[in-house]
């Protein structure tokens, strides 16, 4: 029986991390903020993968490791598996979650977002909103990258939001 964490706490924490990095520490350097958030995710993924592979045989190939991420790892994190996994068989994998938990409570309302950032009235509201959502995805991207790196698969992970609660993560394995 694993210990559990309150989901709302975690979501609030994530939101707070994103907002403090984006609006606080690195207010005008979004790339730096993204890098820091991703790095936090990386360490989390790195450590979680250590724990969740504890009773498993070693993976023989990349696909096996990716499947582990899709099934067991995702279940541990989000109580559900990845809904769809695609690959081009040349080192690129697309992991699609039709209802990504950490985006479940995110909505893109331009007016709301604009009112939230009165300090920066020049910013285009819509652009800013999708950017803010994107910021929330650096953390899970980092988690995936950290987990795979720890399993000996160096890779780059990016996220893509098509329509909001759905989210796909693109994993590109470095040769």
């Amino acid at each position, binding site marked *: 029986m694993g210990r559990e964490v309150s989901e709302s706490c975690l979501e609030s924490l994530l939101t707070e991390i994103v907002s403090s990095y984006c609006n606080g520490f690195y207010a005008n350097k979004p790339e730096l903020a993204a890098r820091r958030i991703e790095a936090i995710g990386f*360490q989390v993924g790195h*450590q979680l*993968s*250590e724990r969740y592979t*504890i009773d498993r045989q*070693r993976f*023989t190939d990349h696909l096996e490791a990716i499947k582990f991420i899709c099934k067991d790892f995702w279940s541990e994190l989000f109580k559900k598996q990845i809904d769809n996994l695609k690959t081009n068989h040349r080192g690129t994998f697309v992991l699609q979650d039709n209802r990504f938990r950490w985006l479940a409570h995110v909505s893109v309302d331009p007016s709301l977002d604009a009112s939230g950032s009165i300090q920066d009235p020049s910013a285009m509201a819509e652009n800013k909103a999708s950017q803010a959502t994107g910021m929330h995805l650096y953390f899970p991207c980092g988690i995936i990258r950290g987990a795979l790196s720890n*399993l*000996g698969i160096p890779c780059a992970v990016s996220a893509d939001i098509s329509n909001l609660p759905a989210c796909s993560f693109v994993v590109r394995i470095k040769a």
Partner: protein
Amino acid sequence: MIVCVAVVGHQNNPLYIQSFTEADDALKLHHIVHCSLDVVDERVNNPKKSGPTLNETFLGLLYPTENYKVYGYLTNTKVKFIMVTTDLDVRDADVRNFFRRFHAAYVDAVSNPFHVPGKKITSRTFAERVSTIVKSFGLNAAG
């Protein structure tokens, strides 16, 4: 009796190495642990020979040397656990059990948010826990 345990990182660098012996052969044990990495490499790179133990984390007896037996364990994250014992008759199940507990202790240690991945494990809690596991290995074997 377990005389030495070690955690070795994926660059074959020691993350934790501790000997439990009164004799002055700690250095030699370090050498033995280091040498055992060759067997781990060999077993992972040419897996045919290991037959049924393919991809199992437990690698079994790595090699016997003058007074010791060296056992190995390789995690999915390419971290190696090495154990050196002086016991001649060791039950496989005991060793497996030992490594399982050792692995769990390791996972707890590296899950510490203040631990930097890939660096040596300096946690005292971990050291104490490993020491307990090592001691209980003897007891289990007896009982």
